[in-house]
């Protein structure tokens, strides 16, 4: 379940022919630092693809290599079947929306948008028409003669989009395009950007460190860490079946319960109890059981349903979030009064429950359970 999730997803456009972006063994070194370490990736035509990872994971370098702003140290890179790894950026059929936009401060909005057309020798009424179209596409009519410094962050973001889209690139690269916006505007722009992508039908490759944003917007997500591509899949695949410990921990919140595999279908947790959990690992390997907080069910001690794996614990913290409670439950020998837990190490589990249910207080003895299908076993 966990190992084949890496390769199970095929891009929507993969069967339509040539992939928009194709990378084989792409690496990038800066001196002694390996920024990107052997990436293999195919991005389909028309796909909205997110490269997701913490800062310094190599996602921006990967994007810059597609743009031609960095040249790979190793590997093959093709855009719609053409080997472009050594091409300069101005020869590539891609455009970029830069982090912090990089709008030309000495040009008006109109001049910024027309720049790419001018550089390709498109001038006159044809250029004017295309600039007007792009301006309308991002709803910036009336702002044509302003300078970037006279625009709000959201408007600058639109200029950056129009400046790239006016060239009808085969692939649009976006480097944390929403990072500089405040939360509310960012959420609105997520919806807009997704709608815009459907409207123009261009392949979008999107770099972000915000996992919620990646899940909300993209057709597929590639999770990166320390220069490596750890998992590629649809948002649901990556969230529900993380390929390893890092992905499980990085995407959303999860409880990672350390343990050792007992059989292909059971894990002995360090906190005690053997629980049913399918895994493709050899018996006796160190692994962790990932359970999402919203999948954890809380019961008053003694009201436990039969059949489900069950751990006893004590609530150590209850946080009210308005729409839900978040409970922290201490599990293990120290918390266990009944002696059912035989393990030696303690663990904590975070659980979420809707506000409507009866509130539990800190110190209350509880049992936690989950359905085995809701868990994933991850190795290092």
């Amino acid at each position, binding site marked *: 379940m966990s190992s084949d999730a890496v390769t199970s997803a095929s891009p929507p456009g993969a069967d339509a022919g040539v992939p928009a972006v194709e990378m084989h063994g792409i690496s990038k070194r800066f001196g002694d630092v390996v920024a990107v370490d052997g990436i293999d990736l195919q991005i389909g035509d028309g796909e909205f693809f997110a490269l997701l990872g913490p800062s310094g994971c190599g996602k921006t370098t990967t994007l810059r290599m597609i743009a031609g702003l960095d040249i790979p140290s190793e590997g093959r890179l093709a855009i719609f079947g053409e080997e472009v790894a050594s091409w300069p950026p*101005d020869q590539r059929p891609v455009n970029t929306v830069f982090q912090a936009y990089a709008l030309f401060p000495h040009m008006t909005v109109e001049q910024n948008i027309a720049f790419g057309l001018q*550089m390709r020798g498109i001038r006159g009424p044809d250029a004017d028409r295309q600039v007007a179209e792009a301006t309308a596409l991002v709803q*910036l009519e009336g702002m044509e003669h302003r300078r970037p410094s006279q625009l709000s962050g959201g408007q600058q973001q639109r200029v950056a989009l129009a400046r790239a889209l006016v060239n009808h690139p085969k692939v649009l690269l976006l480097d944390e395009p929403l990072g500089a916006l405040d939360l509310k505007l960012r959420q609105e722009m997520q919806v807009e950007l997704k709608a815009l992508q459907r409207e123009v039908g261009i392949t979008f490759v999107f770099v972000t460190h915000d996992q919620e944003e990646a899940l909300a917007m993209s057709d597929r997500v590639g999770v990166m860490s320390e220069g490596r591509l750890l998992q590629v899949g649809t948002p649901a695949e990556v969230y529900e079946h993380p390929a390893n410990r890092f992905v499980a921990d990085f995407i959303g919140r999860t409880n990672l319960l350390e343990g050792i595999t007992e059989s292909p279908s059971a894990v002995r947790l360090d906190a005690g109890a053997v629980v049913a959990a399918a895994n493709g690992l050899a018996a006796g390997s160190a692994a962790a059981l990932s359970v999402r907080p919203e999948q954890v069910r809380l019961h008053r001690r003694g009201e436990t349903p039969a059949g489900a794996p069950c751990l006893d614990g004590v609530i150590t913290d209850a946080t009210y979030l308005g729409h839900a409670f978040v409970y922290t439950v201490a599990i293990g020998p120290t918390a266990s009064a009944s002696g059912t837990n035989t393990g030696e190490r303690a663990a904590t589990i975070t659980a979420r429950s809707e506000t409507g249910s009866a509130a539990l207080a800190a110190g209350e003895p509880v049992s936690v359970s989950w359905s085995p299908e809701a868990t994933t076993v991850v190795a290092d």
Partner: protein
Amino acid sequence: MSSLRRAKPAAAQSTDAGPDTPPSLTPAELAAQRRKRRTGTLIATPGALYLLIFFVVPLGLITVYSFATRTSTGRTSLSGWNLNSYERIADDVILGIIARSAWLAFLTTVLCLLVAYPFAYYLATRPARLRARLLVLVMIPFWTNGLVRIFAIRFLLGSNGPASALSEAMGFGTFRILFTPTAVVLGMVYGFLTFMVLPLYVALERMDWRLVEAARDLYASGAKAFWRVTVPLTRSGIVAGCVLVFVPSFGSYVVPEILGGAKTLLIGSYVARQFQAARNWPLGAALSVLVIVAMLVAVAINQRNSANAERTQGVTR
């Protein structure tokens, strides 16, 4: 796509909120304000006095003298104010000297720009630690005695000097550059290069190179990105450097005196001659006023330029 409609009024609001009407101040606040103002005046006084005595007063005297009359004995009579000296500037010889000075200053400025821009570009794109060291190297000649440097050039360019010897050894024959306008321009380029390098360096160092990447991404070749993005965005440095080189070149005295021949009389030397050998102080003073006015115009251009640069680029930085 509703957020734009929302964004417009939001932007309008933020500009409305700008100028607050100052609330009336309490007596304690007013007293504090007065104290602050008094301290400021006190601190500025020594500098102001110095400038008054050694800059404003001589400048005033020069201006007064430019309207005075030269007596037949070469003295200056401080009576019978007239514009004779200014009228004499229209003389063909003097206009020729002014034109030649301006032309050589222009050549010096252009050469300085051509030499300094690539150099400043190189400096500004090095790693920070190397940058600091290279900058010291640029400053060393600037800290060295100017006269010594110019005499060194005189030796270098002389018909018995190393440059000529090298040219002869390579079969091009000896050359005569010393005491020509070429030598003056070369000397002035050398003397004033630092004034060009530093403002260019400052402008290039502040340059946001991501904008060049954006231009490359938008199909601009390296050269086009340079002309369309780097040059306009470093314009303030270019203008400042040109003003800083043109002004001293135009009024230059030492370099033309040492490297120029009798035929390359420039305005600086001509003014000096009026005060010394020719004993025509009013004419010298009138020409000095002219040079100062030219300088003020240049400074005004520079001021406007940097104000413009701030307005167009300030906020996105």
